[in-house]
């Protein structure tokens, strides 16, 4: 999930899917991907370690008089051998797949269609990776059982004391500057965005401050110990070397966690005590629990069911392609449709549920001053069939189409609100037919609005089993939808820009303060990453190099999407060298270059660079994933599943670093 807050656009953007337990298929593929990536690194590490073990053996004499190499055991050798064999099989499969005639894909792997052979290759790589991980991680796990937490605690306490007595903690007070000078003094903004700015600026300040201090402390700790020779008095005690790493890591983590907690509490206090405008409070001082649907764009012919085609929304030429647009006109066939496989209704006794949305408007004419763009929301359940003939309740014996009956019965009930006399009728109607229409709602650019949806619609949606609609391309969802929300722009010559997360049902609202603290978890996850990288680097590199390496990797993590594009050859204008030639020769990025020998050499070199990039792609942390404070700023609740899944991905990233630190420290001659 890349939840990057875009101040210009003012609303939240999720460029990749947030992780949820609902999508097990995606999670399992992520696990397989992790096995492949971490396994590749483990195999590389295994090869290096075995080489080191044979070049610099540490022997011990067994009771039978034989010598045994303590660095390389038989289990490690076996795992390395088995993994190597499976990797060779995978290599053979690569050639098979390359020579394969195009076959019908049977599976999809993170959006990529796969044939049976592709699938075999993926699995072979995952199994080989698993074996390599067992071989490489085995000694690490075994030694973890030898850890004495008393010693780890002593080292952690030492690190904490060191930072405190060296007065590092005073640096944290500089965060007060951000609180003393509110963002609104410096930035022009809509009143409703005030809280977003406050949270955005303060969390960015905390990010920079805590992460820089964390990186500095962790990068210099072990190198300084080695430089000052203080480590000699530690490693000559019965201390496992990994305990030193863990002690340092946990000590600094404790320190920055305490600082983070205090800063978060202080920030919350100031927000609650400050004069936040009512608009901002309504917009952001919430913890919305939202139910999202799947978005697709369709063109419908009048009186017909929507049909999925090649229409994927209009590209209005904006550089940011996150949103797609639908053209406005009363006769416009373009719709944005959100499909919900489950509906937000159950034990809640309320007679309505809010449908919230915030859209972008792209105007081709100036329009009427002060007026928004009109949008119609047409909500239908899986039981709704416009052309279906039903018994007419008003004319017994006669039959009438569902649409005609609905149109007739809903006369005079347009846009009723809860509390109105007509709301009960609207509710009954929605439950009877499985449809609710809200016409001509005025929307404004990125302004969050809501309309009440009668609970009867959800009761209708919950009944029965939805059939997989032939016309709708619902392949992306695991089950057919129970409810769909069709959005149509009514204002001529205007376009409405939408993205999946721009519209949702508001299930409930949580506590803002609790959510604010949950948001701090995202920063804490980032701190864990920063500390793990810097501690690992510091086991091998001098302090300055360790700091710079960790800083580089961490910052590169913010540009992971771009790096991934470059690595996969998807960047516009080609690879780095090709782009350079374009810059020098003033060539347009979208035009193919003449295949001169120079260009060909550069393109080949680019492919080599891309290959290299792909191998090390996972070394960069996906730090954007942990930008949870954006949820808080936008007033969305951070669910426990999101916290837990992010924690799992965090462990998946940090664990290989710690294993690397374990081996680097073990192999290091402290006194050399």
């Amino acid at each position, binding site marked *: 999930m890349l939840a990057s807050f875009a101040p210009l656009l003012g609303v939240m953007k999720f460029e990749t899917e947030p992780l949820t337990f609902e999508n097990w298929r995606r999670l399992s593929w992520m696990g397989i991907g992790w096995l492949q990536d971490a396994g590749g690194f483990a195999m590389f590490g295994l090869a290096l370690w075995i080489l080191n073990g044979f070049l*610099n053996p540490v022997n011990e004499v067994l009771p039978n008089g034989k010598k045994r190499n*303590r660095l390389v055991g038989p289990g490690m050798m076996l795992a390395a051998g088995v993994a190597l064999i499976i990797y060779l099989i995978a290599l053979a499969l690569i050639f098979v797949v390359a020579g394969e005639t195009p076959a019908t894909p049977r599976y999809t792997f993170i959006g990529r269609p796969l044939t049976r052979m592709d699938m075999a290759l993926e699995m072979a790589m995952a199994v080989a990776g698993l074996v390599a991980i067992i071989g490489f991680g085995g000694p690490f796990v075994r030694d973890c059982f030898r850890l004495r937490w008393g010693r780890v605690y002593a080292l952690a306490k*030492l690190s904490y004391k060191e930072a405190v007595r060296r007065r590092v903690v005073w640096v944290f007070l500089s965060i007060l500057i951000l609180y003393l000078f509110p963002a609104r003094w410096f930035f022009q903004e809509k009143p409703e965005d005030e809280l977003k700015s406050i949270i955005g600026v303060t969390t960015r300040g905390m990010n920079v401050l805590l992460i820089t201090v964390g990186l500095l402390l962790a990068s210099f700790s072990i190198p300084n110990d080695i430089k000052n*020779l203080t480590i*000699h*008095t*530690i490693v*000559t*005690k019965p201390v496992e070397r990994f305990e030193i790493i863990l002690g340092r890591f946990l000590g600094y983590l404790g320190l920055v966690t305490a600082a983070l907690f205090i800063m978060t509490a202080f920030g919350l206090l100031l927000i609650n005590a400050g004069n936040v405008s009512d608009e901002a409070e309504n917009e952001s001082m919430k913890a919305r629990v939202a139910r999202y649907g799947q978005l697709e764009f369709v063109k419908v012919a009048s009186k017909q069911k929507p049909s999925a085609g090649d229409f994927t929304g209009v590209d209005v030429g904006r550089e940011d392609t996150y949103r797609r647009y639908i053209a406005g006109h009363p006769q416009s066939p373009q719709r944005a449709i959100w499909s919900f496989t489950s509906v937000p209704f159950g034990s809640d006794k309320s007679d309505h549920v809010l449908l919230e949305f915030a859209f972008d408007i792209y105007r081709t004419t100036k329009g009427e001053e002060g007026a928004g763009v009109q949008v119609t929301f047409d909500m239908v359940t899986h039981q709704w069939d416009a052309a279906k003939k039903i018994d007419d309740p008003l004319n017994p014996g006669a039959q009438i189409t569902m649409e005609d009956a609905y149109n007739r019965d809903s006369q005079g009930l347009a846009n009723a609100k809860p509390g109105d006399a007509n709301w009960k009728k609207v509710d009954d109607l929605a439950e009877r037919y499985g449809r609710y229409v809200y016409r001509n709602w005025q929307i404004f650019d990125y302004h969050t609005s809501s309309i009440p949806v009668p609970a009867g619609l959800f009761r209708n949606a919950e009944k029965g089993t939805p059939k997989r609609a032939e016309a709708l391309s619902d392949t992306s969802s695991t089950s057919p939808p129970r409810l769909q929300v069709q959005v149509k722009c009514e204002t001529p010559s205007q376009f409405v820009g939408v993205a999946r997360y721009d519209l949702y049902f508001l299930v409930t609202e949580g506590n803002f303060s609790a959510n604010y603290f949950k948001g701090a978890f995202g920063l804490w996850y980032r701190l864990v990453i920063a500390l793990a990288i810097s501690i690992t680097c510091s086991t091998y590199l001098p302090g300055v190099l360790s700091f710079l390496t960790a800083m580089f990797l961490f910052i590169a993590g913010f540009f992971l999407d771009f790096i991934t594009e470059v690595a996969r050859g998807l960047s516009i204008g080609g690879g780095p060298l090709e782009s350079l030639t374009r810059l020098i020769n003033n060539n347009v990025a979208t035009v193919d270059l003449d295949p001169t020998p120079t260009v060909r050499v550069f393109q080949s070199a680019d492919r080599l660079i891309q290959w290299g990039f792909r191998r090390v792609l996972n070394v960069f942390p996906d730090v954007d994933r942990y930008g949870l404070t954006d949820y808080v700023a936008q007033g969305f609740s951070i669910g426990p599943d999101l916290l837990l899944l992010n924690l799992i991905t965090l462990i998946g990233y940090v664990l290989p670093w710690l294993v690397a630190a374990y081996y680097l420290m073990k192999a290091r001659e*402290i006194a050399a």
Partner: protein
Amino acid sequence: MAETAVAERPVATQPKVGDVIVETRNLTKIYRDFWGRKKKVALNALDLQIKRGEIFGLLGPNGSGKTTTIKLLLGLLFPTSGEATVFDMPAADVRKNERIGYLPEESYLYRFLNAEETLDFYGRLFDMPPDVRKKRAADLIRLVGLEQDRRRTLREYSKGMRQRIGLAQALINDPEFIILDEPTSGLDPNGTIWMKDLIRQLRDQGKTVLMCSHRLDDVQAVCDRIAILFNGDLQELGKVNTLVEDAVRVEVRAVNLRLTDALRTDLEAVIEKHGGKVESFGHPTTTLEDLFKKVVEESKARPGRRWLPATDGKV
């Protein structure tokens, strides 16, 4: 000394008196540069045994391989070839450190901690229970004479005081085997005497001590056996008394006697009769250390005593 603080010790490897505690076989350390090219042979095929209950000295000029040997035994360096075992365990095995105390050449301790915190920290590294840790720290602070300064951070300590607290941290686990790298470095004469006495006490308690020092008088005063290294090679190994014995010279000391011409003639006659030759006669001088010790003891016994110039103006 307080009772042992380390409860868990591998019974199978518990040495008996006279057992070999340290053994090196063909122990070699070659320092290489980044490209793996040989830079220096720091230690060359060292074969050594240190037995329980002895004070063993490592001697040699700078760069002879003394500290390298100690670092190899402690697992701070890995051997290029050969083996080193301590308590029958490979030198790289951290479990052996349960029974070892190490005082580095300089006292490399955390200067932001005070003496109590320092000993508490190192005690925790041995997983000592809090009450044992506390008692042991108090005993050791008293032993090294830092009771008055136990709450001062080490950055305020003099070099000698740091050496003392360094020794205390080396003894925190009541070790069986103590490695002392230049133990008298930074100590005043009083401190040096105290340190030497302490080393002898440790030996008397059945502990084994390995020390290396540039101060040959210190080594001679306390060591039972020594090894002399030069350029990484073992040059001499044996008991101090045997090694320093001059087998072709005889020294006779007598009391209540002044050297007179008659005495000199008589002695020459006796020596020549037995085939020897007199090299010199004279009154022996005491060592500066003995003189210092005497002066300090007298000063303690008679407060206010001070040296005054002789009345004849001679100094």
